């Protein structure tokens, strides 16, 4: 599903965020990307949804080489991918409902379909009663859950979640992990960037550890 061949990314001349990274993530896998602050986790995810182009190397998503595709094709790539951004990226001037509906409307979904799906997604993250508020009227954790709902509402082929539990207490984090696992069970490939060792200790899955932009370990627990 996701293949990286010798990918290097440097934002500036002097510093390298990712160094000669090669990686393969199969369809339906559930993968943690771990690493210290500044290890390159977000950079890796950003390249997968084509927000950033690699300086060198090739990336294949669902068989498509995304380092080569034109600007007009990027939206269609992104429709296959649900992203939970590290900084949420919610629209503060729009209601919670609209924020989640946005992702469906952008893909041209019909109105009745939109409202049904949005309500269901909000219910799954436990915020259906916050429908009409704006993100600024929510707590940090609630905002994060809206971001998660928006990523899941489109039933993506691939789910990229960047630190999705940074502002969640353990109980809610466990619930959210349940959502991810259910999506994974339905066939979604999940890539979850985190620095929280607790997370992958509680839900052991394949764990790719980054350090200084390089893979330092790629561990698959036997149980899965």
């Amino acid at each position, binding site marked *: 599903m996701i293949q990286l061949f010798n990918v290097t990314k440097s934002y500036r001349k002097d510093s390298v965020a990712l160094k000669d990274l090669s990686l393969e993530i199969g369809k339906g896998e559930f993968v943690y990307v771990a690493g210290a602050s500044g290890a390159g986790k977000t950079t890796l995810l950003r390249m997968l949804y084509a927000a950033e182009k690699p300086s060198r190397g090739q990336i294949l998503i669902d068989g498509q080489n995304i380092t080569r595709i034109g600007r007009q094709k990027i939206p269609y790539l*992104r429709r296959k*991918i649900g992203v939970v951004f590290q900084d949420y990226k919610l629209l503060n001037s729009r209601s919670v409902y609209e924020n989640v509906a*946005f992702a469906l409307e952008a893909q041209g979904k019909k109105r009745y379909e939109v409202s049904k799906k949005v309500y269901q997604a909000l219910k799954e993250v436990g915020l259906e009663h916050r429908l009409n508020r704006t993100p600024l009227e929510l707590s940090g954790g609630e905002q994060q859950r809206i971001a998660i709902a928006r990523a899941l509402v489109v039933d993506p082929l691939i789910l990229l979640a960047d630190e999705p539990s940074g502002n969640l207490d353990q109980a809610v984090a466990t619930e959210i992990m349940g959502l991810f696992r259910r999506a994974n069970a339905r066939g979604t490939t999940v890539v979850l960037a985190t620095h929280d060792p607790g997370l992958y200790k509680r839900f052991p899955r394949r764990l790719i550890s980054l350090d200084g932009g390089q893979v330092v370990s790629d561990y698959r627990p036997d149980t899965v």
Partner: protein
Amino acid sequence: MLDKMRYFIMRALRNMRQWPFLCAASVLTMAVALTMVATFFLVVVNVEQLTQRWSKDLQVVVYLDRAPAPSALTQMVSSIREMAEVAQVIHVTPAEAMAQFRQRLGENAALLQGVDNDILPGSLEIALHAQYQQRDGMDQLLARLKTVAAGHDIHYGQDWLERFESFVSVLRLTGLALGGFLLFAALFIVSNTIRLTFYARRDELEIMALVGATERFIKTPFLLEGALQGLFGGLLALLALTLIFKGILVEIVHSLWVTPAAFSLLFLNGHQQLILVFGGVLLGVFGSLTSLKKLIQI
């Protein structure tokens, strides 16, 4: 398709409701610019109307200093009539000239009492076809007239016409320059206002792109918004123009001429009014387009 259009319009309207002051700024700027351009257009159009009216009165007069023999006169008149430029030749006898002079003196006519009726020379008033009522080519005509009516004084309002024509051309040039400048300024301001609007909503544009919206999907509501604002701006300009016309231009003309009835001012005709409003729409769309071009590159 229809469903999508409705969605776009709804989004455009919602945006306008959400940012009323942004919307008002754009609309007002366009209205002011369009009003000014249109006002200038009206002034130029009316001055040109005036020129044409005055040009109609343009005629060549041959003063018959020594009354010619009737047969010579008839021949002179007929050969002048044959010239392509000439529409009509009227022979004014000395008595008729005196009557006209008396009329022109008005209140002071009394002082002509006792003056001999033959004292003024007779004349031939030569009216020209409309297409020849201009200075170009006039020299040729005059040369030909001089041979036909040799020995007589030939007059025409050359000085006055020259002056007035240069005035009209300066006015037209001014109109062009000022109108162009104003439209450019309006476009600049509108495009900047819209760019600012985008800047204020840049997160929205970015997030749309990130969740898989196509460029067309992102841009269309903004273009619609620009078009709608332009429409309002154009309508407002039409309203303002009507007020300016009725309240100011007509007043000025009334105060300058005693008999304005004879000279009715032109307002924009239906076609031109449409162009004004449509110009607003174009301004809005173009303003949006120039701003949108640079903004979306995520």
